[in-house]
């Protein structure tokens, strides 16, 4: 059955705005918090904002390439989280903090 | 979407829900009776005839006990945990095909709440969410034993999810579909005459290694003995539900039995042909579709109930693992074995030329 496109009711601009908002919330989280893990989560949020837009435009252009891209983004996100959290755990073990304002020893 | 369709689906959903609850209810009873039997005892038999009203008595007890909430900063999460665990346990039953089709008044009714084409993935997804119930509840309890139990549960579940998913992949390679109904239909009957030489059509005979891995992982995912480390009494008092009482504890325990039921159902779907039974074509010819389907439903439930029985049987046979042994088994044995199984399956598929 040929259902009507979702974009007849929900203009694709809406998705642009929603993902822009999600992205900016992610940016806000990165700037606002000092806990490295929450900053990490905010980065995930930004990635997901982009994913949402990719899927939306994949549907908009009837092209599955966008969804494949989302797939790769997920793979990268998973790898990033695995390594990033391992690094954070290692840092926590050494300095007992995941506060980015305390982790400033790399400036020299 | 016509009204009858909605009505039909609602009926099925309600039935499935009721049956799930009922079976979970009587699993608690069954657990106690079977435990007794394995220990040469009789088990509860006083409430009602043969003790069949015992679950009701338990329920009444649970509801009437004091609902204790510890001094925790996360009261909402403390209440939310069991709720979440219960919900995720129940959601899975929506994609399970309980039987083939019935023909009632010219309509073909499939005995399944929703036949989605990625059902296997759906099940995996829901199972992966299930861990939150334990984590949230255990963390919100504000108790180190609960937290340890929750951490153990989460690491155990996400570890064994991998092996479970990998073992399913080899089944999917044979069945070439992600729909549970499709997988069941691929295991039609009991003997498969279509190949070069006849062989059992059930996947337990085609993928014995995958079955074994999946079975072990199912035990780990449901936190059952010998993988019941998250609640192991001798180390962690009660694990993640140490602080729970009354019906919130009841939900946790109940959800565990629902999980057992669902995982048994999935094992029977994936490996034991679900609602298939030997001679089903003959029965269909002789007695018609509806009768054959009903017998199929019976077969499905028989397999599932045997699965539950098997859970209890194992519980009273195999001792609990140590935590490092558990992780070693998951990461160093099951995952490599599952990957090996995928490779072998792929090789066989390519060599057999289809």
């Amino acid at each position, binding site marked *: 059955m040929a259902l009507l496109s979702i974009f007849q009711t929900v203009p694709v601009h809406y998705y642009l705005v929603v993902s822009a908002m999600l992205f900016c919330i992610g940016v806000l989280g990165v700037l606002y918090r000092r806990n490295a893990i929450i900053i990490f989560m905010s980065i995930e949020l930004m990635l997901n904002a982009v994913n*949402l837009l990719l899927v939306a435009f994949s549907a*908009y252009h009837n*092209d599955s390439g966008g969804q494949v891209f989302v797939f790769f983004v997920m793979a990268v996100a998973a790898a990033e989280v695995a390594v990033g959290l391992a690094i954070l755990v290692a840092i926590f073990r050494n300095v007992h903090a995941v506060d980015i304002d305390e982790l400033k020893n790399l400036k020299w | 979407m016509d009204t009858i369709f909605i009505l039909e689906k609602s009926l099925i959903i309600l039935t499935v829900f009721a049956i799930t609850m009922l079976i979970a209810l009587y699993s608690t009873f069954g657990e106690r009776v079977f435990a007794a039997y394995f220990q040469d005892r009789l088990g509860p038999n006083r409430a009602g005839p043969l003790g069949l009203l015992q679950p009701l008595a338990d329920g009444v007890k649970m509801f009437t006990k004091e609902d204790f909430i510890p001094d925790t900063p996360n009261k909402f999460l403390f209440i939310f945990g069991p709720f979440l665990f219960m919900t995720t346990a129940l959601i899975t039953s929506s994609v399970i095909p309980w039987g083939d089709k019935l023909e009632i008044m010219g309509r073909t009714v499939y005995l399944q709440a929703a036949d989605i084409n990625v059902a296997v993935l759906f099940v995996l997804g829901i199972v992966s969410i299930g861990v939150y119930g334990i984590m949230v509840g255990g963390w919100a309890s504000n108790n180190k034993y609960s937290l340890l139990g929750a951490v153990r549960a989460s690491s155990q579940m996400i570890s064994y999810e991998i092996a479970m998913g990998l073992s399913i992949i080899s089944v999917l390679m044979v069945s070439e579909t992600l729909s549970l109904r499709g997988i069941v239909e691929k295991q039609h009957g009991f003997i498969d005459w279509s190949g070069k030489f006849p062989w059992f059509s059930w996947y337990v005979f085609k993928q014995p290694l995958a079955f074994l891995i999946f079975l072990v992982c199912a035990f780990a995912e449901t936190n059952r003995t010998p993988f019941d480390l998250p609640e192991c009494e001798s180390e962690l008092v009660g694990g993640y539900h140490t602080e729970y009482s009354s019906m919130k504890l009841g939900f946790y325990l109940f959800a565990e039995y629902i999980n057992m039921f669902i995982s048994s159902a999935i094992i029977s779907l994936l490996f034991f042909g679900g609602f298939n039974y030997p001679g089903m074509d003959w029965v269909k010819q002789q007695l018609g579709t509806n009768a054959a389907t009903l017998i199929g439903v019976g077969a499905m439930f028989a397999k599932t109930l045997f699965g539950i029985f098997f859970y209890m049987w194992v519980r009273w046979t195999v001792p609990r693992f140590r935590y490092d042994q558990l992780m070693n088994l998951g990461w160093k044995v099951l995952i490599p074995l599952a990957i090996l199984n995928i490779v072998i399956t792929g090789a066989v598929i390519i060599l057999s030329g289809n």
Partner: protein
Amino acid sequence: MHNFTLLLFLILSSLAIFCGLMTVFSRNPIHSALFLIGCFFAIAGHYLLLSAQFLAIVHIIVYAGAIMVLFLFTLMLMNLNEETEQHKPALAKIGAVISAGMLMLVLVAVFKRAVLAPPPPYQDFSIGTIETLGKVLLNEFLLPFEFASVLLLTAMIGAVLLAKKQNPNTNQA
């Protein structure tokens, strides 16, 4: 029906944004993580709305089932609570909000100017199915797919190496 879709979209969007904001502003890191999970579920709902069923479920499995569990796990292991967390000075917070708001404004302004092709009258619902995706993934994108697998393997090894406790006195792992 159409209004129903729009309503669903609005509900999911507001849920996602609310959960996103709560992720940032929750004082307790674990609450942040839980709100982020909620946000991911809303996004998964969006995917379903866009008829990307496979991606929706993979999204749940990967993000909710694996990544966020890892986050929660780490948080619980470190036992980070709101009492232990330091917060930025108010000035920095205001600066953060202003910066993010500026970015938001600029992004919206950019998107407003975007010239898009006319919306398709009919949607091809087969692009989100696992068959189509699998074919595209293993034909057109085979090499990136392999690279992704290598990336994950590398990440796994790296994570194991990093997380391993290094004890110079003993050789045991």
